[in-house]
């Protein structure tokens, strides 16, 4: 059933009036939303960037398969073939011992160039997997193959990173959940206090035959408006703060793997999300608090 336009207008008017009429309650509820959203905003920004950081590191992870010094060309071709057959392997790339030495020289310094006369390194297959947690399994299979001298990847680092990222995510989600619940509780409590004053009005509405939905709508509007009001400051903070951070961290300090998500669209997405969360907890808190008064 479609609501009549006049009725919809009335609900918006009533909801707005209530916000103004109970101004200090509004301030309290909006304050609760604001505080929550600021914290949620900071957490989300941190979490998503952490995620991105982990992703960057994961992309950098590779596995070196050292080829026996005595291996023939056929053995090497066969090995390459075998490795690329292993599930989850996305690429196998040959790197000769000369190339390996060049990389080392680049990383460690010119002194190592001495070894160019008598290169002690192995030829290497550089193996990449879809995801970092698959290397362990691949390692097991590749080690068994012929013509393999040894295999390594930054096992500890990868595993610790994955663990850290996982725990950080769980803790972040739990924390955000707790924050949201607290905010809903605070809002529904503040609104409940204003409702005690309005319970008379509600009981008269019921007496003259108002449907529960009719009584609920203005509260819905009120909660929504409080959510919108409550998200203004957090959104401003996130936009300004992230802009500052992005400009400074990314351009001036260069930390390996740290590559903040670009301001556009990331900051806007977070802002939209905060607005959505604000509206949701506003409505939820508000509608929860009328429920008790609607029971017949």
């Amino acid at each position, binding site marked *: 059933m479609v609501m009549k336009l006049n009725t919809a207008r009335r609900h918006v008017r009533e909801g707005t009036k209530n916000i103004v009429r109970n101004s200090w309650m509004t301030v309290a509820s909006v304050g609760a939303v604001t505080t929550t959203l600021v914290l949620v905003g900071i957490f989300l920004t941190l979490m998503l960037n952490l995620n991105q950081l982990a992703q960057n590191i994961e992309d950098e992870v590779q596995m070196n398969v050292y080829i026996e010094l005595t291996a023939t060309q056929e053995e090497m071709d066969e090995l390459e073939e075998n490795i690329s057959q292993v599930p989850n392997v996305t690429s196998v790339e040959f790197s000769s011992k000369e190339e390996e030495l060049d990389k080392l020289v680049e990383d460690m310094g010119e002194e190592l160039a001495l070894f160019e006369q008598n290169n002690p390194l192995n030829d290497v297959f550089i193996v990449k997997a879809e995801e970092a947690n698959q290397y362990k399994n691949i390692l097991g299979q590749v080690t068994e193959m012929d013509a393999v001298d040894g295999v390594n990847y930054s096992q500890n680092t990868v595993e610790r990173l994955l663990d850290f990222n996982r725990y950080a995510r769980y803790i972040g989600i739990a924390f955000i959940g707790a924050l949201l619940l607290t905010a809903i509780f605070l809002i529904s409590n503040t609104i409940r206090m204003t409702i005690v004053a309005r319970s008379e009005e509600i009981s008269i509405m019921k007496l003259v035959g108002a449907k529960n939905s*009719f009584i609920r709508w203005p509260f819905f509007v009120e909660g929504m408006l409080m959510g919108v009001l409550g998200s203004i400051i957090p959104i401003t903070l996130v936009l300004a703060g992230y802009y500052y951070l992005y400009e400074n961290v990314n351009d001036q300090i260069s930390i390996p793997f740290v590559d903040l998500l670009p301001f556009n669209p990331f900051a806007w997405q977070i802002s939209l999300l905060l607005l959505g969360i604000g509206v949701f907890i506003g409505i939820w808190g508000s509608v929860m608090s009328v429920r008790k008064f609607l029971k017949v």
Partner: protein
Amino acid sequence: MIEMKKVFKLYSNGVTALNGVDASISQGDFVYVVGPSGAGKTSFIKMMYREELPSKGQVYINGVELSSLKHKEIPFLRRDVGVIFQDFKLLPRKTVYENVAFALEVIEENPRKIRRRVMDVLDKVGIKHKARFIPAQLSGGEQQRVSIARAIINNPKLVIADEPTGNLDPDTSWEIMKIFDEINSSGTTVIMATHSKDIVNQMKKRVIAMENGQIVRDEQRGEYGYEA
């Protein structure tokens, strides 16, 4: 129009308010409900607009058994019943006009119709000239007129009043009673709980007397029967 069959009401605090009430009230009746305080008059009345449900027994309004009514259907029952209280229950921040229009707004009546109907009904109860006042600026009698206007604006078939003259002086009470009489003469059932001996004795209507949650007397053209 109203049938009660062996209605009991036991409140959770242990008070038995109704103790096996049988009653039958026809469309167009004017009924006084009398009896000492705590006799169950208010509980009896509350059964009729489903403010309370019986602990045992049935209440029928126009053939519909009220405890079988779904929550969603209750508002529609209430639209056919006008209720008036001793303390008026007007919204203090709204004007007389708004208080009465409210009853139409909540049932989503067309706004163009609201204005005409509100002014009509305010005229009927003699308070049209104070439409822009708020309740606190009115006397008790005037406030009761407003609450009557609100109760009858939907043309209910049944008007229920719980001691409507309890807070009013005798002269004002008579003016209010005249309004109830007019409402009744247009075919609306009126049920009124009252402690006013003079009103009951002079109006000569049906009287239901209650004591200890039971109907002890039910007479057409009855008397108050208690010393006031």
